[in-house]
């Protein structure tokens, strides 16, 4: 057949240099790495009868006992007050830093460091000095958020359209230029990001209950732990309602009232002991051999840290598994909430599912799976994959909804594989790589539930009052996060417009 030679042979699978193939190879490499390393993870199901436990939990969700809640008003008020003031203080600290962010390497490094430590770890740290007080709660939120606000605000400000600034007459001062020709142009985006961060703060504020601060999470944890699922269900519904109605009670016009009013709900306030504080910062946090300049002793001290390398390994492994899991969950779930698929009812249900998964704090999800499946990496993996996958799926669906398919007659699988996925996949993967940093940070805190990541050892070091060891492990966690962040930035798809700040 002489003609056949003129037609080139079909290329082998995934060979070629188009951007789509490059992304596909990158994704498959990630998945392959996860599959190869999976046997190293402890994935046993330990509880005897997870299904009946799940049934009891679901019945608790389905028939919440509102009447048995011991006055949740106080817990709700404190949750909102902490979230609101934590965010506000974060803005007050972060905004000035955003203005010098691009000019100061020191500020950038400092912000990266405070961001790299999860809110709950900050809470554990401040807990040692300020106890179960409002200072601990507020500092735990405000400090990492200052770093996040500084970075994201700086990125948004950098994208200010230059034309109005250039049109100004010569000699306009810095402040006037900023408030007239820069701030109004980006105000909408700054506000949108701040709103999203406040939603994160609500989740974090709930989580503070897990270390003992009397927010909603405190009651949630004890209700779950003691098997009072109908009460836990009522509390969870209450939390979803709170998040869903954010637009109503968190309205722009109500905000000043809310800020002032909630200030009175914060408490209790600690009596700050300066000597104790100084002792903690100058002595307790540092290993004794280091303070004495005894280098051999320092090595011995390092050797005494139990299972440091396995903990780092587990943290990284869980981070990888969580990232890959989130990718698969996102690929499977995004059509549920997209206008291109299903009917009105399925879309409503799909969107509800994604919002519920996204709104539930991952620690909460992991805790529920832990009660079901027993302590292994499995519940942590499920929680990370579902929470982050749902978040990415939601944004991917919104991206897809803005697209118009070129061929109207295609069936669902054709629309998915040929029309929509090729267009949204670069954005989806970019979101995933952004999210990898968040996932590794969450991985560490899942240790507080007993999963053998770095967080587990940090939690227990604090419990045994070994502050130097806890602090060292916190620094290791931060370094790990910074490393993963640099790595994901290296492999993230470039030239994708990510105008959605709500991914970080």
């Amino acid at each position, binding site marked *: 057949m002489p003609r056949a030679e003129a037609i080139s042979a079909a290329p082998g699978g995934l060979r070629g240099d188009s951007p789509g193939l490059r992304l596909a190879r990158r994704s498959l490499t990630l998945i392959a790495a996860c599959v190869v390393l999976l046997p190293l993870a402890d994935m046993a199901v330990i509880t005897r009868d997870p299904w009946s436990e799940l049934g009891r939990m679901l019945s608790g969700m389905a028939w919440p006992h509102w009447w048995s809640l011991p006055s949740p008003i106080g817990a709700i008020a404190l949750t909102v007050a902490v979230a609101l003031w934590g965010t506000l203080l974060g803005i007050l600290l972060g905004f000035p830093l955003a203005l010098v962010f691009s000019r100061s390497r020191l500020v950038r490094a400092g912000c990266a460091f405070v961001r790299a430590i999860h809110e709950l770890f900050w809470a554990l740290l401040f807990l040692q000095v300020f106890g179960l007080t409002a200072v601990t709660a507020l500092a735990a939120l405000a400090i990492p958020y200052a770093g996040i606000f500084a970075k994201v605000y700086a990125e948004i400000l950098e994208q200010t359209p230059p*034309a*109005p600034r250039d*049109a100004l007459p010569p000699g*306009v*001062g810095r402040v*006037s230029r900023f408030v007239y*020709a820069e701030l*109004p*142009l980006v105000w909408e985006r700054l506000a949108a990001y701040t709103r999203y961060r406040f939603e994160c703060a609500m989740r974090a504020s709930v989580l503070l209950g897990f270390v003992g601060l009397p927010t909603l999470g405190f009651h949630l944890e004890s209700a779950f732990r003691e098997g009072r699922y109908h009460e836990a269900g009522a509390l969870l519904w209450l939390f979803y309602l709170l998040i869903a109605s954010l637009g109503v009670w968190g309205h722009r016009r109500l905000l000043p009232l809310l800020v002032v009013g909630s200030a009175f709900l914060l408490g209790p306030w600690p009596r700050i002991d300066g000597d104790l504080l100084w002792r903690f910062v100058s002595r307790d946090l540092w290993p004794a051999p280091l303070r004495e300049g005894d280098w051999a002793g320092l090595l011995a001290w390092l050797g005494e840290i139990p299972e440091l390398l396995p903990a780092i390994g587990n943290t990284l492994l869980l981070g990888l598994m969580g990232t890959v899991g989130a990718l698969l969950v996102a690929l499977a779930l995004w059509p549920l909430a997209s206008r291109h698929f299903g009917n009105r009812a399925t879309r409503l249900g799909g969107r509800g599912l994604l919002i519920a998964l996204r709104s539930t704090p991952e620690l909460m999800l992991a805790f529920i799976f832990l009660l079901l499946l027993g302590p292994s990496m499995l519940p942590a993996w499920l929680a990370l994959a579902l929470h982050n996958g749902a978040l990415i799926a939601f944004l991917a669906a919104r991206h897809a909804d803005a697209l118009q398919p070129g061929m109207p007659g295609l069936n669902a699988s054709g629309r998915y594989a040929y029309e929509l996925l090729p267009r949204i996949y670069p954005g989806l993967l970019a979101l995933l790589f952004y999210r990898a940093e968040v996932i590794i940070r969450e991985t560490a805190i899942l240790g507080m539930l007993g999963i053998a990541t770095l967080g587990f050892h940090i939690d227990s070091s604090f419990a045994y009052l070994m502050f130097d060891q806890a602090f060292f492990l916190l620094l290791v966690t931060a370094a790990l996060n910074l490393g993963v962040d640099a790595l994901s930035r290296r492999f993230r798809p470039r030239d994708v417009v990510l105008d959605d700040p709500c991914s970080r």
Partner: protein
Amino acid sequence: MSQATLLDLRDANLGYGDSVVVSRLSLTLRAGERIALLGASGAGKSTLLAELRQRLAERAAWCPQSHGLVPQLAVYHNVYMGRLERHSALANLCNLLRPNRRAWAEISELCRELGLDGLLKRPVGQLSGGQRQRVAIARALYQQRELFLGDEPVASVDPHQALRLLALIDKRHATSVIALHQRELALTHFNRVWGLRDGRLAIDAPADELTLADLDRLYPDAHDANDAEG
């Protein structure tokens, strides 16, 4: 012709960074001149205007091509920005919250002349293209300088209105340099024409010595374009 020289360029190379856009440029700008700046897009009009703006600094009011308006702010605030440097930062901040009474009176008078009355509180983002253009001109007029520099300030209004706007600009400025694409307007309404072609000053002559055919030569594709239109 004993008018004062405002600016004198001799063999100047203009451009951004290392790239030269307009080369070996020599021209003189005298007080009282009304200059139409012509040339195809990319010929260097904006580069020349940027240079003039930089050299004349505080003597020139500036009306940029992209308007440089802030869509989120009201018409009043956008016009007020023309004198931002003449107030303290605090006064400017207060003015954002509550308009300065004197500035409000002046700006509403100016906007009335430009046919923008009743729109002072409207965000610029909600205006039509022609209205925005007039806001940009209002801001330049509000600067109250002796000289007006404009990059296509009458590009997106109808010919009748363009004449009215140019008259307003002339009323308030003794001297003006305005980039245009309406060749007829350049001959009827200005007393001198600077024509740029391929980064060189091809025409520098009084308007009454020029014909439309002279100006057509500035546009390499003008002939073809006219054929296509016909």
